[in-house]
């Protein structure tokens, strides 16, 4: 009960802060929408169809949702570093709550915010000529939460190790863009040069974005957008399993790292 209360309190504060800071919402949606509409519309005509009935913008759409989720998930780490910088972390660290619950609360906060932002991107579907059924939307939501929680934990883990704001921001930038570019947001994850193929396959974001694409585009087995791992074409559930495994390891490490930090 005590732990639940801790998780809730930490989560609630992050949501409150998000709510107070509506510019952050606009700011963090700017890039994904820029990519979707400018990049997407610009390249769509010259690239034609990438798959059966799927043009470039439509191909990119699930990726852009994943990109939004990734960027807001990493904000969990930023908020830890931010709290340390402005002193509030001390109030949290001396409080009689289990430190591991703080890591969980932060992760869930990031997941909630990522979910809200992902849903906003989903609302743009009709503008690029896609109609999503309610079932599709309901299936995407848990995928977004899982991806945000997994990557949010990674962000928190890094935030407990990297103490300075400047260093953390730099590391985040070093991670964010390569992770986005090498996750199949802008191009299918197969048929790449081998060095790139390797990076795409070890990128956890790949296993977050691919299942979102599998659900939204409704592609079955044998689609050109699927990941092939050791000769095996990864199904939706295969991808979810990889992401979930990564997420579990990350949240455990984040909880442990938060517990021992000073």
């Amino acid at each position, binding site marked *: 009960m005590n732990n639940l209360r*801790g998780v809730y309190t930490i989560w609630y504060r992050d949501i409150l802060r998000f709510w*107070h800071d509506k510019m952050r919402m606009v700011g963090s949606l700017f890039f994904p929408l820029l990519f979707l509409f400018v990049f997407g519309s610009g390249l769509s005509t010259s690239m034609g169809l990438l798959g059966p009935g799927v043009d470039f913008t439509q191909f990119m759409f699930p990726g852009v949702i994943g990109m939004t989720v990734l960027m807001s998930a990493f904000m969990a780490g930023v908020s830890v570093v931010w709290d340390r910088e402005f*002193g509030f972390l001390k109030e*949290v660290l001396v409080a009689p709550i289990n430190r591991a619950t703080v890591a969980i609360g932060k992760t869930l906060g990031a997941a909630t915010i990522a979910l809200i932002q992902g849903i906003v991107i989903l609302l743009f579907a009709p503008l690029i000529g896609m109609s999503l059924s309610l079932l599709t939307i309901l299936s995407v939501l848990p995928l977004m939460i899982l991806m945000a929680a997994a990557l949010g934990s990674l962000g928190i883990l890094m935030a407990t190790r990297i103490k300075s*704001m400047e260093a953390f921001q730099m590391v985040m930038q070093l991670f964010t863009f390569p992770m986005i570019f090498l996750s199949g947001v802008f191009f299918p994850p197969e048929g790449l040069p081998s060095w790139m193929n390797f990076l795409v396959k070890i990128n956890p974001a790949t296993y977050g974005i691919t299942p979102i694409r599998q659900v939204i585009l409704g592609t079955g087995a044998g689609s050109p957008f699927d990941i092939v791992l050791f000769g095996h074409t990864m199904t939706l559930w295969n991808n979810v399993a990889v992401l979930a495994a990564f997420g579990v390891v990350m949240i455990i490490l984040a909880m442990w790292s938060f517990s021992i930090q000073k």
Partner: protein
Amino acid sequence: MVDDITMADYIISVENLEKKFGELVAVNGVSFSVEPGEIFGFLGPNGAGKSTTINILCTLIKPTAGRATINGFDVVHQQSHVRQSIGLVFQDPSLDERLSGLQNLRFHARVYNLPAKIREQRIEEVLNMVELWDRRKNRVSTYSGGMKRRLEIARGLLHYPRVLFLDEPTLGLDPQTRNRIWDYIIQMRKREGTTIFLTTHYMDEAEKADRIAIIDHGKIVALDTPGKLKSMVGKDIITIKTDDNHKAAEEMKERYQIEARNDGEELTFEVAKGAKFLPSFIKGFGTTVLSVRLRRPSLDDAFLKLTGHEIREEEASFNIKTMARQHGRRMRH
């Protein structure tokens, strides 16, 4: 077993506490006990081990050796109980400036497990006490420095802690605000019997303590009431200014066997009965005396005698550090 019983009588009990950071020994075998309801002053130059000791007591870091209990709970093995027993007002701000004062207190009330029924009532009570009830819905970023401090004190008291740690609680505040903050603290102690553990660079604040421990180089060098500490200096303090301080110092040594401290500007020395000593001294002294001051020893003098530092110097250098940091933060906004 006998040990445990005596330890339980004290609200804070520290035995041979030691903390090493690599080669550096920050706290070197510190022992002291604090009685319930006491205002306990903890003074020392910067880097003497003050903050390290406080961080151990409030469970932020673990000691290398020794033992400490708060409210009967061990700071290493019963962290959660210790945390529930203490309130903290840190040297550096620790509020969420993006939230309102009320939201900050609600966060605190929740993590300290105040039952929902009494939560709002308690928040109203402490906000009224620090006169911030009217501003409760404003974001903390719109508060002045003094208001933020008051809010932190309200927060520190919200869960009725047995011990309230005040680490430089009024640093950089104007005298009026400082007085008000002290009114709340005294009020709380009277009503709830809260024990106050205080660090400060203001002598008038240290005077409010029932007992003061002075720590230097990781060791407690004195522990007594402010009155007794002052009487340790013993003698009256005379400060003179002459047209040649160097020559005057020589003369002091020859004629009175008194070792005067020369800070370049003035000479300071101690004599047993200053008021009797002065008239004959000035009449007979070979060097021309330009000005004379005589005073009874203060806590500052005791501090100086014990640590070789003046408290004020410390305060000045500290303020510059804090200002630079706060400035840096503002730039980053």
